């Protein structure tokens, strides 16, 4: 509690401040209204788990993609295994399943479209100003555009990507959590 004369000063200042200005002086409010801590007790500070956000790395999206393909399609398990010893029949059965589920992953999270919608092995004419990132020329590439050639691969581009949010914290490096079965 503040000392006697201090209190007298506070009382007078508060009286006139409230009467003429409708408010309590700031320093008075701070001193007087501050909640008193019981002696000996330490103030409880709410503990919030602070999740350490790691710095975003350029590979985060790629790791997420691996994680999605593994979670829903088990692609990483498949690619990591040595398949040499297995007969085609057994490999084929596994491939069909992995193919189906990984395909669903692509469909769920991306809208993938070919760059050219024409049929493969058809003639196609390229106009001047085409984007070399979108079209790769092979064969007898002599005269400049426009040129006509045979479409061997339609290309792929991502029209839309709908990815879930990245995991927090350590989850960002995880492609698949280890699984422990508790009996």
């Amino acid at each position, binding site marked *: 509690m503040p000392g006697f004369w201090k209190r007298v000063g506070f009382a007078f200042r508060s009286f006139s401040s409230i009467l003429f200005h409708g408010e309590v002086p700031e320093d008075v409010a701070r001193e007087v209204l501050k909640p008193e801590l019981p002696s000996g007790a330490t103030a409880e500070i709410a503990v919030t*788990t602070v999740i350490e956000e790691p710095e975003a790395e350029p590979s985060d999206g790629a790791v997420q993609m691996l994680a999605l393909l593994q979670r829903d399609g088990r692609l990483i398990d498949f690619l990591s295994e040595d398949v040499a*010893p297995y007969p085609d029949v*057994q490999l084929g059965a*596994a491939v069909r399943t*992995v193919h189906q589920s990984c395909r669903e992953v692509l469909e769920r999270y991306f809208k993938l479209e070919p760059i050219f919608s024409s049929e493969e092995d058809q003639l196609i004419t390229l106009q001047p100003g085409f984007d070399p990132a979108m079209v790769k020329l092979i064969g007898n590439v002599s005269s400049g555009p426009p040129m006509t050639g045979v479409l061997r691969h339609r290309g792929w581009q991502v029209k839309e990507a709908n990815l879930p949010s990245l*995991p*927090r*914290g350590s989850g960002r490096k995880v492609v698949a959590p280890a699984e422990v079965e508790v009996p």
Partner: protein
Amino acid sequence: METKYIVGIDLGTTNSALARTEATASDENTPIEVQKIPQLVNPNEVAERTLLPSFIYVPGDLDFPKGSLSLPWEKEPQFVVGELARKRGAENPGRLVASAKSWLSYAAVNRTSPILPWQAPEGVPKLSPLEASAQFIQYLRTVWDIASGKNGERLSEQELLVTVPASFDEEARELTRRAAEQAGLRHVTLLEEPQAAFYAWLENQSDAWREKIRVGDLVLVCDVGGGTTDFSLIAVSEENGELVLKRVAVGEHILLGGDNMDLALARVLRQRLEAAGHRIDTWQLHGLWHQSRIAKEELFSDLSKGAHPVTLLGKGSKLVGGTIKTEVRREDLDHVLVDGFFPVVASNELPARQRRIGFQELGLPYAADPAVTKHLARFLSEQVRNSPEASNIRRGPTGLACPTHVLFNGGVMKASLLRDRVVSVLNTWLREEGFEALGATHVLEAPDLEHAVARGAAYYGRARRGRGIRIRSGASRTYYIGIESAMPAVPGMEAPLKALCVVPFGMEEGSEAKIPDREFGLVVGEPAEFRFLSSSIRKQDQVGSLLEDWGDEIEELSPLEVTLTLDGQQGSVLPVRLETRVTELGTLEVWCVSRDGSHRWKLELNIREKSDKSLAA
């Protein structure tokens, strides 16, 4: 305050759904929309679905990484609701609340005390079946308010219909109401699910339903879903020309459904694999269960396929090395599912009751006999007998209730093989009782079985606000006859035509109207052209309105040329009053009554969809 929407909420045992339609729309064809429900489908991933799986997972600290459960409206929800709950619950069943609805109707437990997850390990917070049901409704409400709340159209302000199984007792219904209240929805109307399914069928049929259903029919509603089977009988009647559905009998809430069927197939596959020397543990059985469901749906929908492959990938890193391959064969489907769950039985074959073992594990009362057809036999024979309406139900000499139609509902009944089997078993019984078998028109099928109940509830809500669903169909256009105006002749110009409304839009077949205050001149004794017109745009015109200018809104039909005779009169114009009638066959009759009432002439026009002209005098 005028409510904007009518909302149907289906709280299913396995999946919940919500459908809505605009309340003020006068057009019967206003669409009914199924609500998209965003939910957690994986950690860190929220996606929209049209169904909300009725599962709640109570996460502990170790289940999910921190922050991976955040929803757009809540960063750290206490429970996981929906698809992720179901997925994770398969991995850790001790924390999963499932079948809350079946618990809500189970009188042997205290439904308001926290008992779910059932037999959860220590330390898991529990909910009562009431709270769990409230959670689902609350979730739907939150999703709605987030999507529409901007316009001030909160769910609590709409007209709400919530469906319940017909087998719910008074307490279960009251608990459903309380669950809605707990979720902040105070004024809800409860509608029984078989009726909602019927209304969904009506909505899908548009006007064609009148050819399939008549007053006096008795409809068996056969609802087999993922975990439950419900039977009820609905009598079709009318009140003031409005279709009224009365549920006259209901069976028990039988805990038997598609999940049992998938599990049965999975067991067959396990036996087959074990006979080939493989060992199948619980997790692989789970995988077999999931794949059996897919194989079952494929084989049911493509009847030409003889088998469907099932592959279990090896666990851990030996994916290819541990791959086991087998298949579900057509014979498995026929033997295990069709004959196992829908066997051909006599109408007096009742479900087997297992001999009771003295001590029972406490839990939901799962059905002991998996034969759905036996449960149906029991329903039609014993349970109908106990219904208060028993005397109104059409029954055969043995007392078996004999429906005139069947309406299928629930995911399992999507399979045509199973529907056909139920119908053929039912027909055998009907013939034995001396009634005619059901033909294809007696089997009512609504598409979209997963959302049917929610849609049907919304449709019912809208219908009862308006004039209800009329038993007799109404005119689909407004009809007029052409009246030649009395005007001085102008060379080269026809006298202008006025249109007199004789059949207002929606006038019901079998009703009449008089045009009392006007007289018209009827040409008798010489050939005259009677011109008819119709409009699909002008729906508000009343009988007797005389129109002069109508632009494009009214089109003329081909005229009727006829000579009306009256003895001794050649080419006169007689004053007459007009009365119109639309017969039950959809014919418009315009009666011209002479002023003294002594003579009547009739003009006829067929106004059913294919308009044909017929002639009478």
